[in-house]
C-alpha cells in the first residue's frame, strides 16, 4: 500500500474537492438566507435544509459506490490522516454531543465536564495503546484482531457479541436523534422522520460501505462544525465584543454569572428577595403535598373524599365573597375538576407536587465542583465524577466503530497523525460547548431574569409556545417579573435557541438543525456499518463460509446492513425509554469487554486465548451484573458499591477484565510462536526495513 505514487496526488485532489464543497455549501446557505428575506416560509426553508443535505450525502455515497472488498470494508486504506481525522470527528460526535452537551453543561455546571473530558481524553488511550498497532495489523474489524491474536473462534465471537451489544444501543439513540430533529424542523411525524433519515444513511453505506461513509462523514463534519461555530461566535461578539467565545466566556461572562448567582442566593438584595419569594411558594406547595401524602397513608380513600369536600367548600366560600375574585374561582374550579379519582393517581400526582421542592433550593454556582450539602455528599460526587470520566475515556478507546476508522489510513505513520487530527477536530467543538453554556447562562441571568412577563424576549416566548419541556416559564409569585426560579429550561434548548438569542435570522437555525442532523447521521452510519461488518465478515466469512467468493461476501454484507438498519429503526420507533442511560452504558460495556483484551494483546506477549476469554467474559459480566443490580429500571436496586452510580459500572468491569486476562493466561500455556511473531509484527511499523 505504501509507496503508491498517487497518494500525494490523491491528497491534493481531496483538498480541492472539499474546498469547492465548503464554498458551495456556504453559497447554498447564503442562497437560503436570500430566500428567507424574500419571504419564503420557515417551514419550506426547513424542508430545503433537510432534503438538500440528505440528497448531498446520498450523492456522495452514490459517487463512492464500490464492489471491491477492501474499499467496502476499509475504504481501500488510502484515507489521508487529515481526512480520516475529520471522518472520525463526525463518526464520534453524535446528536448528544452536538445538541445535548452544551445543555448538560448549562444545567449541571462543573459536573457536566465529565463528558467533555471523558469524550476527548479517551483519544490519548487510542493514540498510545491501539491505533498504530491496529493499523499495522491491518485487517477489517475489531473481532478480527481478537480472532487472530488469541486464536480460535471463541474470542472472535465474544468480540462480535460485545460489538453488537454496544453499537446497537448506541445506534438507537442516534436514529432517535434523527427523528427528533427532522420532526421538529419540518413538522413531519417522528416515525416518518426516522425513516427519511434512515434512507439517507442507507443510500450512502449500502452502495459504498466504508468508502462512501468516510467521504460522507468528512462532508458532514464540515457542516456540523460550521453550524456549531457561527451562532456561538455571534453570541460572543454580541455579549462581550470578543469573537473568541473560548476566551470571552471565561474572562468576561463567567465572572458576571458568578456575581449574579451570589445575588440570587442573597435575600438581602432585591433580586435575592424576589427569588426567595418564589422559592417560598415552592416550599409551601411541597409541604402541602407532603401533608396530603401523609394523610393518604393514614386515611386512604376516606381522606381522599374529605379533601375533595374541603375543595368544594372553599369554592363555595369564594363564590359567596364580595367582590368576586374570578381568577381564584377559576383556579379552585380547575383544582376540583382535576382532583385525583383514586388512591393510586392521587399518590402519583401529589408525589409530583412534592418533587417541586427541588426548585426551592438556592442556585448552584456554575463553576462549583462536586456540589452537595455536606462533606460526605461531596466525596461521593467526586468519586462518581472521576469514575464516569474513567469509563467514558476507556470506553472511547474501545468502541469498535471508532477503532475501525484507523484501519483506513495508508500507513502506521498516518494512523498516528490521524489520531491527532481526530482529537483536534473533536476538540474544536468540545472546547466551545462549555463556553456556549456560560454565554447562554449569562443571557438568561442578566437579560431574561428581571424582565416583565409582558415583554418577554422573542426567543423565550417562541420556544415556550413550541415545547414546554424545553422552555417553561410561569409567573409563580405574580409580581409580573421573571425570576430565575420561575424558568425551567430543557438542556437541548441551549444549542437550538442560540441563533435566536444571538439575533440571527432563521436560516442559521436551519443550519444548526442541519448540523445536528449531520452529527446524528454520521454516527449512525458508522455504527450500522460496524454491526453489519461484524456479522458479515466475522460470523459469515470467517466462521461460516471462509471460501465465499467476493461478490457473495458483499451481497451478504449489504443485506445484513439493510436488515440491521430496519430493525434499529423499528426499535427506535417504539421510543424505548432511558435512552441516555443506554448510550452511557455502551461506554462502560465496551470498556469492560474490549479494552483489557486489546491492550494486553499488544503489550503482553504472554496473553493467550484462555486469558482473553476469561477477561472479556468476566469484565463484561461484572459490568452488566452491576448495572442490573443497581439501575432502578431493572427493579432490583441493590446497594451500590462504594456509592458508584450504575452508569460507571466500567470502573469495576475494566480491572476485572485485566485480572481475568492475566489469570487465564498464567494458568494455561504461552501462545504459539506464530502468535508471538504476530505481536512483534504489530509492534513495529516495518520489520523488514531493518537497515542497520
Amino acid at each position, binding site marked *: 500500500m*505504501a*509507496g503508491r505514487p498517487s*497518494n500525494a496526488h490523491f491528497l491534493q485532489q481531496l483538498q480541492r474537492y472539499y474546498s469547492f464543497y465548503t464554498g458551495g455549501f456556504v453559497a447554498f446557505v447564503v442562497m437560503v438566507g436570500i430566500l428567507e428575506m424574500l419571504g419564503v416560509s420557515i417551514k419550506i426553508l426547513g424542508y430545503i435544509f433537510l432534503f438538500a443535505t440528505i440528497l448531498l450525502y446520498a450523492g456522495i455515497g452514490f459517487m463512492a459506490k464500490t464492489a471491491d472488498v477492501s474499499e467496502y470494508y476499509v475504504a481501500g486504506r488510502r484515507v489521508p490522516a487529515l481526512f480520516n481525522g475529520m471522518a472520525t470527528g463526525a463518526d464520534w460526535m453524535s446528536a448528544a454531543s452536538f445538541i445535548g452537551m452544551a445543555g448538560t453543561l448549562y444545567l449541571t455546571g*462543573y459536573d457536566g*465536564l465529565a463528558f*467533555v*473530558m471523558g469524550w*476527548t*481524553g479517551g*483519544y*490519548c*488511550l487510542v*493514540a*498510545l*495503546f491501539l491505533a*498504530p498497532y491496529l493499523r499495522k495489523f491491518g485487517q477489517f474489524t475489531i473481532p478480527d484482531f481478537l480472532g487472530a491474536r488469541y486464536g480460535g473462534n471463541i474470542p472472535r465471537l465474544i468480540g462480535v457479541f460485545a460489538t453488537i451489544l454496544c453499537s446497537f444501543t448506541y445506534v438507537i439513540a442516534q436514529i432517535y436523534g434523527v427523528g427528533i430533529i427532522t420532526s421538529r424542523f419540518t413538522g413531519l411525524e417522528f416515525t416518518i422522520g426516522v425513516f427519511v433519515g434512515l434512507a439517507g444513511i442507507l443510500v450512502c453505506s449500502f452502495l459504498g460501505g466504508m468508502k462512501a461513509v468516510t467521504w460522507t462523514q468528512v462532508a458532514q463534519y464540515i457542516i456540523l462544525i460550521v453550524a456549531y461555530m457561527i451562532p456561538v461566535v455571534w453570541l460572543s461578539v454580541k455579549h462581550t465584543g470578543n469573537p473568541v467565545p*473560548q*476566551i470571552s466566556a*471565561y*474572562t468576561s461572562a*463567567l*465572572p458576571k454569572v458568578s456575581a449574579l448567582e451570589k445575588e440570587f442566593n442573597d435575600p438581602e438584595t432585591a433580586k435575592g428577595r424576589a427569588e426567595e419569594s418564589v422559592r417560598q411558594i415552592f416550599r409551601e406547595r411541597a409541604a402541602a403535598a407532603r401533608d396530603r401524602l401523609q394523610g393518604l397513608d393514614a386515611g386512604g380513600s376516606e381522606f381522599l373524599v374529605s379533601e375533595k369536600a374541603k375543595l368544594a367548600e372553599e369554592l363555595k366560600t369564594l363564590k359567596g365573597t364580595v367582590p368576586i375574585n374570578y381568577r381564584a374561582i377559576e383556579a379552585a374550579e380547575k383544582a376540583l375538576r382535576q382532583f385525583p379519582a383514586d388512591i393510586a393517581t392521587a399518590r402519583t400526582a401529589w408525589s409530583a407536587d412534592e418533587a417541586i421542592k427541588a426548585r426551592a433550593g438556592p442556585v448552584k454556582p*456554575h*463553576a*462549583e*465542583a*462536586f456540589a452537595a450539602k455536606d462533606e460526605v455528599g*461531596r466525596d461521593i460526587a*467526586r468519586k462518581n465524577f*472521576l469514575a464516569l*470520566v*474513567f469509563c467514558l*475515556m476507556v470506553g472511547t478507546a474501545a468502541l469498535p466503530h471508532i477503532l475501525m476508522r484507523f484501519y483506513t489510513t495508508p*500507513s*502506521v*505513520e498516518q494512523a*498516528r*497523525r490521524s*489520531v*491527532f487530527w481526530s*482529537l*483536534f477536530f473533536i*476538540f474544536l467543538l*468540545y*472546547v466551545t460547548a*462549555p*463556553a456556549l453554556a456560560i454565554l447562554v447562562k449569562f443571557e438568561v441571568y442578566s437579560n431574561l431574569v428581571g424582565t416583565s412577563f409582558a415583554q418577554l424576549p422573542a426567543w423565550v416566548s417562541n420556544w415556550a409556545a413550541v415545547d414546554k419541556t424545553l422552555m417553561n416559564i410561569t409567573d409563580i409569585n405574580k409580581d409580573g417579573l421573571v425570576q430565575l426560579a420561575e424558568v425551567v429550561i430543557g438542556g437541548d434548548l441551549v444549542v437550538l435557541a442560540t441563533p435566536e438569542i444571538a439575533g440571527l435570522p432563521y436560516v442559521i437555525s436551519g443550519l444548526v438543525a442541519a448540523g445536528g442532523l449531520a452529527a446524528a447521521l454520521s454516527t449512525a452510519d458508522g455504527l450500522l456499518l460496524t454491526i453489519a461488518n461484524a456479522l458479515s465478515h466475522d460470523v459469515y466469512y470467517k466462521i461460516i463460509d471462509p471460501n465465499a467468493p467476493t461478490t457473495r461476501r458483499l451481497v451478504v454484507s449489504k443485506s445484513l446492513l439493510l436488515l440491521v438498519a430496519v430493525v434499529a429503526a423499528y426499535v427506535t420507533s417504539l421510543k424505548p425509554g432511558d435512552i441516555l442511560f443506554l448510550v452511557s452504558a455502551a461506554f462502560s460495556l465496551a470498556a469492560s469487554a474490549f479494552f483489557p483484551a486489546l491492550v494486553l494483546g499488544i*503489550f503482553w506477549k504472554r496473553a493467550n486465548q484462555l486469558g482473553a476469554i476469561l477477561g472479556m467474559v468476566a469484565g463484561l459480566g461484572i459490568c452488566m451484573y452491576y448495572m442490573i443490580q443497581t439501575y432502578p429500571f431493572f427493579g432490583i436496586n441493590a446497594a451500590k458499591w462504594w456509592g458508584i452510580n450504575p452508569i460507571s459500572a466500567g470502573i469495576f468491569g475494566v480491572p476485572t477484565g485485566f485480572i481475568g486476562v492475566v489469570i487465564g493466561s498464567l494458568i494455561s500455556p504461552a501462545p504459539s510462536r506464530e502468535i508471538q*511473531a504476530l505481536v*512483534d509484527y504489530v*509492534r*513495529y*511499523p*516495518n*520489520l*523488514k*526495513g*531493518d*537497515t*542497520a
Partner: protein
Amino acid sequence: MPLTEKHREYWHRNLKLTSLLLAIWFLATFVVSWYARELNEIVLIGPLGFYMGAQGALIVYVLIIWYYARRMNQMDKQYGVQEGDE
C-alpha cells in the same frame, strides 16, 4: 523474523515514552479533577479547577497525541523500522 538489539531498544523507548505521556494524561485528568474544589480558589482565566476541566485538560490531550505522533514517527526512521516512502 528474529528481533535485533536495536529492535528491542526501539520497543523499550516506545514503552518509556508511552508511560511518560500516560502519566501526564493521568495527572491532567484525575489528579487535577480530584483537587478541583481547591483549585477553584485560584482564579486565572476563570476558576482554575473549572478551567482545567473545560479547556486545560483538552489542550494537554491534544499536545500529548501530537507529541507522540511526532516522536514515534521520528523514532521509526532513527531505528530503521519506518514504512516505505509515501
